[in-house]
């Protein structure tokens, strides 16, 4: 049996010395993951970029069209701008409602003491329930003669067509989506609240800070890393909204609930326009990248890290 590799000592901590044997072992361990990343992430990404420059029906001969798909998307397709507007509207409303509600509920649950975890589980159930099941249940509730309108009828109110009225359909999707997704942010913000030292709040109280002052001057700044994480993830998720409009409204009425991913899916798999669908996918990728980059550029200004 050979001796173990020499241990290097740095900062008083023993670390295994780098050796070619360990390097190979590391590569072997990493290889499956890297291979998966290359095959399932990098390769499709590059492939979609290439396909976006073709007029490519699923069956039939692909034809190179250069940037035509992008030009058509930006200048010749009014539906693209509609779905982009819908997606932005959804993203802004969903993110704001989700974060505000999640923060309020997380603070409330934090104050409940031993009952907090019980309610936290209740709020988290929709997150782990399949989106399709949730959407179908909501569809049944929101139909013209569904549970919601039946309840309103008992109050003497004639309920509207939640999914057929173009003025209400998007709002219905946002409400359903907030209900579905709020639990995740409640858990993250709850963990952030738990990490705030009670000494800080106690010190603020001794200094004469009221409840609102303690919330805005102590809790929110200390919670800002969690809030930042939730904001980034919620915005990214909201741009990818698909299941809700696909199952509840099919993008209708008109194009009022049509989103980029739904439009992309239809172009690719229903209308046989793989090239155009790939161009839409890249447009979505660029938009999400830009927004995420903007958020990270403001991170130092907006987020308060303890250290």
């Amino acid at each position: 049996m050979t001796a173990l590799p020499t241990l290097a000592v740095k900062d008083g901590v023993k670390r295994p010395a780098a050796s070619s044997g360990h390097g190979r072992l590391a590569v072997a361990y990493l290889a499956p993951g890297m291979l998966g990343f290359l095959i399932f992430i990098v390769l499709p990404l590059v492939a979609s970029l290439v396909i976006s420059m073709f007029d490519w029906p699923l069956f039939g001969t692909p034809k190179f069209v250069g940037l035509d798909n992008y030009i058509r998307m930006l200048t010749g397709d009014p539906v693209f701008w509609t779905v982009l507007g819908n997606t932005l509207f959804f993203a802004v409303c969903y993110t704001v409602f989700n974060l505000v509600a999640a923060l309020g509920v997380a603070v409330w649950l934090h104050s409940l003491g031993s009952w907090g975890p019980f309610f936290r589980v209740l709020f988290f159930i929709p997150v782990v329930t399949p989106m399709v099941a949730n959407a179908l249940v909501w569809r049944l509730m929101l139909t013209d003669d569904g549970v919601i309108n039946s309840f309103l009828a008992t109050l003497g109110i004639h309920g509207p067509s939640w999914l057929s009225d173009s003025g209400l359909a998007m709002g219905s999707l946002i409400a359903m989506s907030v209900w579905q997704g709020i639990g995740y942010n409640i858990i993250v913000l709850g963990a952030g609240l738990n990490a705030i030292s009670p000494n800080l709040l106690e010190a603020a109280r001794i200094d004469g800070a009221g409840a609102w002052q303690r919330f805005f001057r102590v809790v929110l700044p200390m919670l800002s890393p969690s809030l930042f994480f939730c904001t980034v993830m919620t915005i990214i998720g909201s741009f990818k909204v698909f299941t809700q409009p696909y199952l509840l409204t099919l993008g209708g009425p008109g194009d009022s609930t049509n989103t980029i991913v739904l439009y992309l899916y239809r172009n690719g798999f229903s209308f046989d326009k793989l090239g155009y669908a790939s161009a839409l996918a890249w447009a979505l990728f660029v938009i999400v990248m830009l927004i995420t980059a903007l958020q990270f550029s403001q991170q130092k200004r907006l987020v308060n890290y303890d250290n």
Partner: protein
Amino acid sequence: MSNNRVTGKLLTAAAVAALAAGALTACGSSSTGSSSGESKEASSMYTWITNENDRAQWQAFVDAAKKKDPAFNLTLEGPSFNDYWTKVKTRLSSSGAPCIITTQAARAQELKDLTVPLDDMVKSNNMDVSMYNKAMIDGLTVDGSLRGIPYDAEPVVLYYNKDLLAAAGVQEPTTNYTTSKFAADLKALTKDGVMGLAVPPGFGSGPGLPMAFANGNEPVKDGKLDLTNQGLVKDQQFAFDLVAKEKLGNAPQASDGTDVPEQQFMSGKAAMIIDGPWMYDTLTTKTQGKVGIAVIPSTSGESVGMIQGSAFAIGASCKDKEAAFKNIMKITTPEVIGAVGAARGTVPSVESAVKDWAGTKPAADVAVVQALLKSGRPLVTTPSWNQVETNFTQYSGEGFRGTKTAQELLSTIMNSAK
């Protein structure tokens, strides 16, 4: 031995085991090796299986074919009808795809790159295609070549609830029905929580397109979309107005399948519905009250039938086309088609088998279908028809609510589906 060598050997062994497992799996799913000598794919069919009713229908073809060839079998796979037209394209491009697929006259153009011309095989196997419904053969002919062997030829009909009509004092319609009488009847029927007409959001599923067809207006002319021809626009607007202005039906939601209006009809909440004869057994046996059928109303009362039949085709990726065609021949004989028509209610594509379908059905109902078969024309479409259907379903809510006109909607759809 070093730890590294042990790890290396373990990794190598794991890789070999994984490869071996992969190879075995691959062998297990090999496309050859069926006991009959034909490939497994040649006796596999990709089709719509929305529910047990669909599965039972396909099984009826197998059972009927087995009477002549006990060794015959057909394995089935596929999604629901609504998902079928999207998924069939990706399924046929994957390895081990079934050779036989179901198609429709209305989708023959759209699926032309997925299916192979059958003319040579028809000739070499001495198959007599003249026995099949001419409208279906015309509809299944793409660029001069036949793309499928039809098993049914189903003219869309108008179902009505006899009890509700009697209660409203409305005379039962028959083989001659004008749109003005239809509108008047719907008005008389819409009361006490009952709507005159149950309305789906789709285009082909009506009511606009079947009524346009009844008047001789078609959505395709010379192989190109012609959605804005004034006849079609007028008929579609008539259908929108029945709901938006006259309030004779509930405006559908885009996500409603055809099952939603069918449920309205079956539960007695709607007195009439336009649907295919394939729903005959379901609608006549499960509806509250007795059900009859009539022709689709037209301006003159004389109705051109919109024939919405289906067929069996062979996928372009099939390696054993001849064997697949021989299997199709076994399930499209007049005997098999007649037996399925008798057992499952599909209107046979072979005229001589229509008597099997007629069975013990009321003579008035049989007369309606036969009249529509006689006058019928196939719903011929274009390769972008799925886009037309999808967009119409998405946009039709605005038409049925009166916020957009038929002209606006059909123009938008035609421009996007060019």
